[in-house]
C-alpha cells in the first residue's frame, strides 16, 4: 500500500488520560490494573478501569448518547488537543471528505444491562429514558462523534470483537485509496460492562490476578477499557520523515471455531504475512512486535506458533495487556498508539507481570523495557469469530 500518516493520535486507558501517562508507564514498566470493584460485579478478577469516566458530561443537546462508552469517547477525545486537531482536519479537507471509522465490541450495552434491573413489574417494559439508538446500538459511538465533531462524510462502526479497532485502519485506508475521502478519524472505544466480565468468566478465561501474557503460569485475561484515536491521511510535502506511518494491513479468518483460535495460529499467520506483503517489508526488517498476547493458555500458544512460522524466534516482542488489560474492541487502536509511542520515543515496552516466559512459546519476549528505537513494528489483533488483523507501522522516512 501507499503509506498513510497518523498525523495525530491519542489514547486513554487505565494507565491514564492521554499520551503522557501511557508513555511514562510503558517506559517505566508500570501497570494500571486493579482488583475488580466495577459496578455491582462480584468476580475474583482484576480490571483496567479508567478513572473519571462517570464525571464526564456530554453536551446537553447530545444527552441521548449518555452512556459509559460515549463518556469515555469524549474524555479520550479531549486529551492531547486531539478534538481540536480533528476539527482542523475537517475544516482542511471538507466535511464530506472526512470519514469516521470506529471499532467497538459492546458499545453502551451497560445501560441496557442496568435497565433490565428496572423493568416495569406489570408490563416488563424497560425504563422510558433508555435510548437504544443513543447507547445500546453498535453504531452509537459513531453517531455521537459525528454530531460532536461535525463529521459529514462516510461513517461506520466495525464490530469484529477484539480485532475491531485494528480493522478500522484497513477500512479507512481503502476509502482514502479509492478516493472517497481524504482523511479519517479512526479508532476504538470499549468500556467495562457485565456482558464481557461475566461472559469471559463463563468461559473460564479471566485470571484471578493481573494477567501474565506469555508466562509459564499464565491463566487468563484481565479485562480493560480504552479509547484510542488517530487522524489518518496521506502524507504531504510538509510531512516529517519522523511521522508515524501506517505501512501495511493484513486481514484473515480462522474458519475454525467461534471462541477458540486455530491451534497452530493459521489465521494469525495469514494476517501477519498479508500485512508484511502489503507493506513490502521482509520478516527480517521487523524490529518489534506488539502481541495480541491476551494471556490465555491457548491464545498465546497459537500466536507464538504463527510468529515462529512468519518471523522466527528472534524478533523482540511483548504484550502490553499486562499494563492496560485487554481493552477488547479498543485494543487494536490502543496498541497502534503503543507502537507509535515506541517508534516516536525510541524504546520497546516490556511485557509486565510476566516473571518466567513460557519456554514452549519460543519467542523473544521482553520482560524489561529495551531502550532501542524500532523503525518497523508489527501489531496483532485477533478476536472471537476467528477474525485476525495485523498492521505494520513505522517512520514515514
Amino acid at each position, binding site marked *: 500500500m501507499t503509506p498513510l500518516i497518523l498525523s495525530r493520535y491519542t489514547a486513554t486507558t487505565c494507565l491514564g488520560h492521554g499520551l503522557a501517562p501511557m508513555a511514562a508507564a510503558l517506559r517505566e514498566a508500570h501497570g494500571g490494573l486493579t482488583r475488580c470493584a466495577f459496578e455491582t460485579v*462480584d468476580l475474583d478478577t482484576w480490571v483496567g478501569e479508567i478513572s473519571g469516566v462517570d464525571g464526564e458530561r456530554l453536551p446537553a443537546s447530545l444527552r441521548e448518547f449518555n452512556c459509559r462508552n460515549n463518556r469515555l469517547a469524549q474524555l479520550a477525545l479531549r486529551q492531547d488537543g486531539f478534538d481540536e486537531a480533528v476539527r482542523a482536519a475537517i475544516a482542511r479537507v471538507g466535511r*464530506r*471528505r472526512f470519514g469516521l471509522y470506529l471499532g467497538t*465490541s459492546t458499545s453502551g450495552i451497560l445501560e*441496557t*444491562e442496568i435497565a*433490565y*434491573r428496572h*423493568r416495569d413489574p406489570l*408490563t*416488563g*417494559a*424497560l425504563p422510558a429514558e433508555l435510548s*437504544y*439508538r443513543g447507547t*445500546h*446500538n*453498535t*453504531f452509537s459511538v*459513531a*453517531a455521537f462523534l*459525528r454530531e460532536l465533531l461535525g463529521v459529514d462524510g*462516510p*461513517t*461506520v*462502526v*466495525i*464490530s*469484529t*470483537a477484539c480485532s475491531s479497532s485494528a*480493522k478500522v485502519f*484497513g477500512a479507512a485506508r*481503502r*476509502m482514502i*485509496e*479509492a*478516493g*472517497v*475521502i481524504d482523511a479519517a478519524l479512526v479508532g476504538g472505544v470499549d468500556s467495562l460492562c*457485565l*456482558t464481557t466480565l*461475566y*461472559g469471559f*468468566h*463463563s*468461559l473460564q478465561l479471566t485470571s484471578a490476578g493481573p494477567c501474565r501474557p506469555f508466562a509459564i503460569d499464565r491463566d487468563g485475561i484481565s479485562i480493560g477499557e480504552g479509547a484510542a484515536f488517530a487522524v489518518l491521511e496521506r502524507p504531504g510535502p510538509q510531512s516529517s520523515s519522523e511521522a508515524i506511518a501506517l505501512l501495511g494491513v493484513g*486481514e484473515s*479468518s*480462522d*474458519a475454525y*471455531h*467461534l*471462541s477458540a483460535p486455530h491451534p497452530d495460529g493459521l*489465521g494469525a499467520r*495469514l494476517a501477519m504475512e498479508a500485512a508484511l506483503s502489503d507493506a513490502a517489508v521482509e520478516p527480517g526488517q521487523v524490529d518489534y512486535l506488539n502481541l495480541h498476547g491476551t494471556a490465555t493458555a491457548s491464545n498465546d500458544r497459537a500466536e507464538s506458533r504463527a510468529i515462529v512460522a512468519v518471523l522466527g524466534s528472534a524478533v523482540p516482542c511483548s504484550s502490553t495487556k499486562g499494563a492496560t488489560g485487554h481493552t477488547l474492541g479498543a485494543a487494536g487502536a490502543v496498541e497502534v498508539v503503543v507502537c507509535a509511542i515506541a517508534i516516536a520515543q525510541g524504546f520497546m515496552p516490556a511485557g509486565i507481570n510476566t516473571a518466567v516466559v513460557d519456554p514452549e512459546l519460543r519467542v523473544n519476549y521482553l520482560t524489561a523495557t529495551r531502550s532501542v528505537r524500532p523503525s518497523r513494528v508489527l501489531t496483532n489483533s485477533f*478476536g*472471537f*469469530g*476467528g*477474525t485476525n488483523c495485523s498492521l505494520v507501522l513505522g517512520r514515514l522516512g
Partner: protein
Amino acid sequence: MTALSAYIDGLSVIGPGLADWPAAEAVLAGRAAYAPDTTVLPAPLALPAAERRRTGPGTKLAIAAGLEAAGRAGLDARSLLSVFTSSGGDGDNCHAICETLATTDRQLSPTRFHNSVHNAPAGYWSIATGAMAASTALCAYDASFAAGLLEALAQVVVDRRAVLLIACDTGYPPPLQQKRPLADPFGAALVLAPQRGPRSRARLTAGLSDCGADSMPQAQLERLRLGTPAGRSLPLLALLARRASAAAHVEYLGTMSLRTEVEPC
C-alpha cells in the same frame, strides 16, 4: 464524491414471503404479486451439527443468503472477501444475556456469550465454508446497508477481488422490541466483482448524494423497505430485478443517500 464501480455477479434475497432471489426478482420486476408471509430461515446444513445447533436466526439468514449469492455467481465461497452488515446482533441472545445479568446468579452460558459478538454470523460463515479470506462486520444503524455497500465497493476497487456483501437484520423480543421495533427477518446478498464475467448481471456505480432515499412505489414493498435496515436495499434490488438501466437512491446517513446506478450487462 468519487464514484465506485463493480459488476454484480450473484444475488440473494430472503425475507417475509420471499424464499430466494427468483421469488424476489419476480415480485420486484412486477411479474408476481407480493404475498407477505413469515420469513423462512433455512437450516445452515453447511455447518457441522454441533455448531448448527448454536446458531441464531441472523446467522442462519446470513449463511443461506451468502451461499445463494455465491452459487448464482458461480464462485467458490472460499475465494470471496466478505462484508457482513447489520444494525444489531442476535436479539433473542441479547435479551437472554440481559435477563441473566439482571438476576442475582448472573451465570452466563458460554455459547450465549460467544454468540453475542456482532461478527458471529461472519465467524459461522467462515466455519461453514472454510473461507479464510478477510471478512468484516459493520453497523451503521438504519444506514447499515449503504455503509456495507460502500465498504464492499471500496474493497473491489482497491483490492481488485470479488467481494460478497451480506446484509441481514433480525429483530428483538420484548422488551427491547419496543425500543427497536424491526419487522420480520430480512437478508440480501450481492457478489461484487472487479471485472465483467460470464455471470455478470449489471455494472453498478455508486456515490454519495444529497438527494433523499427513494421509496418503493407499492405500499407493501415500502413497508418491507422500512421494516429493517437490510430492507433499505430494495430500491437497488428492484433496478437489478427489472434489468433496468437506471439509478436509485439508497438510504444513508442523515440527509445523505447513496446514488446507485446500474447498467445491465
